[in-house]
C-alpha cells in the first residue's frame, strides 16, 4: 500500500513542516517515506508545497502526478491541486480560508476549519497540526501516537514547550473528521 500526499498553502503556514512530521512518524513506524519540497524558482513568498510518500515497499518516483491525498491550506492551493487528486482519494480543505466548494465529486472531501480551530486554541500557527490531525484520521496513514512522538523527537529544544498545544491541535483535527 502506498500513500501520496501533497501539502499546499502559503509561506508561513508551516506546510513543509506538516509533511516532514508525517514523514517522520511514518518512518518511525517502519515505513518507507520520502519528502520533497516544491522546489520552484520562486525563492520566497507566494505558495509553498511539499510531496510526501508513505509506502510499505521501496518508493519509486518521489514525484507524484496524482496523489492519493491533497491538503489545501488556502484557496490558491485548492485551485492548483484539486484536479490532481486520484479518483477515490482524499481532499482535505482548510475551510477557514477556502471559501468556495470543491468541484470534485469522485473524492472524499474533508473540510476542517483549521485556522479557526487553531485560533480557538490560542495560536494560529498550529493550524497545520489541526489539518494534519484530520489527514491521519481520514487516511489512517499513521497512528496518532506516532505523530505525537515524531513531533516530540523533532521539535527543537526551544519549541518543546509547544508540544501539548500541538497534541491538542492534532486531536482537534482528528475529531473534526
Amino acid at each position, binding site marked *: 500500500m502506498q500513500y501520496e500526499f501533497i501539502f499546499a498553502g502559503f509561506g508561513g503556514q508551516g506546510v513543509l513542516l506538516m509533511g516532514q512530521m508525517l*514523514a517522520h512518524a511514518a518512518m518511525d513506524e517502519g515505513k518507507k517515506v520520502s519528502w520533497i*519540497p516544491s*522546489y520552484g524558482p520562486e525563492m520566497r513568498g507566494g505558495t509553498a508545497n511539499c510531496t510526501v510518500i508513505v509506502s510499505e515497499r521501496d518508493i519509486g518516483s518521489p514525484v507524484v502526478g496524482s496523489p492519493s491525498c491533497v491538503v489545501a491550506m488556502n484557496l490558491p492551493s485548492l485551485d492548483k491541486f484539486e484536479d490532481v487528486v486520484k479518483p477515490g482519494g482524499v481532499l482535505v480543505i482548510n475551510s477557514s480560508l477556502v471559501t468556495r466548494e470543491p468541484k470534485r465529486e469522485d473524492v472524499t472531501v474533508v473540510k476542517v476549519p483549521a485556522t479557526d480551530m487553531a485560533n480557538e486554541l490560542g495560536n494560529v500557527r498550529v493550524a497545520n497540526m489541526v489539518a494534519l490531525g484530520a489527514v491521519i484520521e481520514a487516511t489512517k496513514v499513521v497512528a496518532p501516537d506516532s505523530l505525537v512522538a515524531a513531533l516530540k523527537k523533532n521539535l527543537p529544544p526551544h519549541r518543546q514547550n509547544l508540544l501539548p498545544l500541538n497534541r491538542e491541535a492534532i486531536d482537534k483535527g482528528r475529531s473534526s473528521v
Partner: protein
Amino acid sequence: MSEKLLMRGNEALGEAALKAGCQLYFAYPITPQSELPEYLSRRMPEIDRVFLQAESEIAAINMVYGAAGAGVRVMTSSSSPGISLKQEGLSYIAGAQLPCVIVNMSRGGPGLGSIQPAQSDYFQATKGGGHGDYHLIVLAPASVQEIVDLTILAFDLADKYRNPVMIMGDGLLGQMMEPVSFPDRSDVVLPEKPWATTGYTGERPKNIIRSLELQPERLEAHNQKLQEKYADMIATQKRSDEYLTDDADIVLIAFGTVARICRSAIDMAREKGIKAGLFRPISLWPFPDESLAKLGDKERTFLTVEMSCGQMIEDVKLALECRRPVHFYGRVGGIVPSPEEVLDKIEQIVAGRCEA
C-alpha cells in the same frame, strides 16, 4: 549502522563526507546545493574540521588541489555553471593524480538556465569537460541512502586510484528527505599517502605535485600510466542495478532521480501487462556496458530516459553495439518527467508507434 534519520539529500551527503573522513570542504554557494555548504558550515567547526567558503568555484577547486596534494581527504560541491568553471582545475587534479570528491547537483542549462533539476551535464562529467585525456569516476545515486553510500565509496575510490570522483545528483535529490543510516566508520584506517607534500625531511625523495611534462615522451608515458589506471577502473568499477529485467520486453535505461520515476512507470506498465524492466547505471563512468550488453543479447527494445536532450544514449548505443533499437525520451530545462508520461512513451513504443 546508525539509527534511521530523515535527512535532505544535500545534508546527508555532507554528513556522509564527514563519516568518510573528509577533513576539508571548500565551495561557493549555488542553488540547488547550498544546503550542503550550509550544513557543513555548522557541522565542521563542531568537530574541528575545515569549512571554507571560497571566493569562487575556481578558487574552491584549486584549494581542493592544494589540500588533496597535502594528503588530506577533501571535497567541493557546486551545480552546473559552477562545475563548468572547475573544468581546468579538474583536468589539473586528474593530471596530477590527486584524490578528491566533487559534487554536482546539476540544474537546467545551458547558460544560467534555471535552478530546477536536470541531467544535461552527463557529457561534461563522463567525456571530460576539461582538456586532455582524463576521466573522473562518476557515481549517480538515486536515493538519499545511496547518496550516503556512494559518497563514502567516492572517498575510498578517490584514494585507491589517486583520482577525482564525482557524485552526480540533481536538485531534486539534493532537496529530498528520506530515511538514512550511516555506517560506523570509526575503525576504518585511511590509506597512507607517501606521495603527499608534507615537508621534505630527507626520509623520502622530495614530493612534487604537478602535471607539467615538457618532454613529449615523458608526457606520453604519464598518459599511458593514467590510461592503465582507467583500464583498471573499467575492469573493476562498473556499477549498475536492474529491476525486473529478466523477462522484460522493453528495458528502460535511466540514472538518478529519473531511474526512480522509471521504476514507477514500469510498475504501472506491468499492471497493464507490459513486460518492462529497468537498467540503472550507478557508475556513469565507467559506464556499465557489459551488463547492459548482456541484456542486449535477447531480442528486446530499449528506451533511454534522461533529463537532457539525449546524452547517455550514446553510451547506451555503444554498449549495445547498435544491435537493438534504442528509443529516447527526454525532458529538459528543469522539467522532471512524470511516471505517467514515461508510461505513455512505453505504450507508444510497444504499440509500434515510435521509430528508434
